């Protein structure tokens, strides 16, 4: 019984990795606390929901589409709005992203209302059984997709020219500029990538859970927890953070009850922040404390 609960909890951990990684990337590269992250996840979820309603597009197939759309929006947001205040201090950019969060939330409320929405697939309730455990197919697919996308982002950052430019800018903006990196553009791409990953995470959530505009708040909180658990700015860490949060939530629910799911997450968040602010995996990747 407990094993089943923990398996169910762990499966969502793959999606959590994708939920947290964009938040962590933006912080690591640009030193911005992106308070709009929850609403980007929510918008990704609704983009996929709308594709399903209008064109009966399978949510897993609409992931690339949602990612492209939100990459472009994210790029534009950073390039034309956030870049203007990034030099005036960390508070300004953080508050600005909260303005964006509220705008996106209101847009979602106007377009889709406050109701709960679900994507019903023919295999929504199908599950594999293994050693007495039931493993829901949809959750397993979402788990794999979340981990794969996070790993792809890591490969992109380490193996491509643009990815290296992003890392260089994170380490030293001025030095990067001197060797010919277009910092404005790099920042735009960074935010775009983070928004695309957030949208992908949202699409996966739309595939496995009911969605509502109010989800932005919960997932912003979760992104905080995942990113801090894994170490802010650490892309691999997001996978660790995602899995740890999912397991901790599962344990909290199993021992204290379903209403303690969020409380468990926030508790370990505060604990890790106080005891080990640079995260569970140790080494700082980009960010400085």
């Amino acid at each position, binding site marked *: 019984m407990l094993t089943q609960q923990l398996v169910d909890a762990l499966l969502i951990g793959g999606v959590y990795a994708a939920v947290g990684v964009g938040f962590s990337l933006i912080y690591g590269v640009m030193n911005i606390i992106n308070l709009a992250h929850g609403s980007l996840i929510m918008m990704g979820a609704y983009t996929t929901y709308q594709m399903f309603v209008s064109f009966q597009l399978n949510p897993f197939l609409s992931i690339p589409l949602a990612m492209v759309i939100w990459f472009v929006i994210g790029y534009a947001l950073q390039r034309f709005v956030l870049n203007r205040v990034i030099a005036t201090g960390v508070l300004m950019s953080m508050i600005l992203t909260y303005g964006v969060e509220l705008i996106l939330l209101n847009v979602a409320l106007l377009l889709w209302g406050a109701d709960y929405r679900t994507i019903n697939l023919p295999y929504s309730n199908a599950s594999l059984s293994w050693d007495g455990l039931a493993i829901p197919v949809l959750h397993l697919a979402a788990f794999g997709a979340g981990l794969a996308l996070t790993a792809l982002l890591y490969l992109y950052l380490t193996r491509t020219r643009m990815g290296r430019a992003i890392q260089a800018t994170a380490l030293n903006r001025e030095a990067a500029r001197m060797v010919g990196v277009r910092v404005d553009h790099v920042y735009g791409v960074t935010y775009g990538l983070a928004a695309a990953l957030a949208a992908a995470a949202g699409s996966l959530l739309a595939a496995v859970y009911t969605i509502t505009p109010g989800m932005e708040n919960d997932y912003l909180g979760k992104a905080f927890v995942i990113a801090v658990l894994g170490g802010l700015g650490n892309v691999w860490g997001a996978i660790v953070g995602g899995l740890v949060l999912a397991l901790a939530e599962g344990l909290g629910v199993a021992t204290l009850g379903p209403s303690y799911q969020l409380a468990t997450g926030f508790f370990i968040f505060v604990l890790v*922040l*106080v005891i080990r602010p640079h995260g569970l995996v140790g080494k700082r990747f980009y960010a400085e404390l």
Partner: protein
Amino acid sequence: MLPLLAAALIVLPFVASGYWVRLATDVFLFAILAESVNLISGYAGYAALGNVVFLGTGAYATGTLMVDLHLPFLVGLAAAGLVSAAYAALLGLPILRLRGHYFVMGTIGIDLLTREVVYNLGFTGGGQGLNMPIAPWSPPALYAVFYFAMLAVLAACVLCTFYVERSRLGFGLRAIRADEEAATVVGIPTTAYKVTAWVLSAFFTGLAGGLYAYWQTYVDPGVVFDIVTSVQFFVMMMLGGMGTLWGPLIGACVIEVLGQLIWGQFPTVHYLVLGLLIVAIVLGLPRGIVAWISERGQRRATA
């Protein structure tokens, strides 16, 4: 100028309609919240974005004492300030060690955690919230009472900030904001100063929470711990001017009056208007109204 303003504020509830009295009380509430967060964020430079946690703590201190223990309102109100201050003192040591963004996220985490705990406790009413006892006054008298009570707490908060600004503590806090290492080196007890500033901030925020609970006659955990509220009064402080005495009050006045007048008309675009307002403020007046006015004044003087 100041006595004139004071006289106008005292006369207002006797001449204005209930709507304006309520709006003014609302402005006072946000002015207290903005001026309180100014103590720790404006002067010491520690961005306590989760400061709304003390509004909730205060509201629940008053609420639970009145509902569960049937104590009188004034006892509940005193508890609101004291419990919030004690909570800040307790949190201060671990949380105020964190710098920069880690502190910001720590305070938000504390707020979310506290909200979740309140949701799960029996005596707080959980997700249903708390229904407060009805105050034994007629509506106009009720509005006037809360108007003056809120105004009194605001006046105390401004007075406290005024003295802090001129005291050793105020100089110490500004030194911490400028360079914490340097402040430690010259012998400023940085930890004690930061905790003191946060405790004062929590005390006034908690009092506002206690008043808010009885004024609204209902405490909703989703509302009193809402990060949106926190960001709202943070933006008010920034718009007015961080680390200035009058800035947060001006900011609260401008945003709350503007906001109420606008979303009174268009309730469905409440968040949109607030969001656009935030974007406009950050892009247009990044250093606040007070700095903008004094810069203009200087330019005129030199011209």
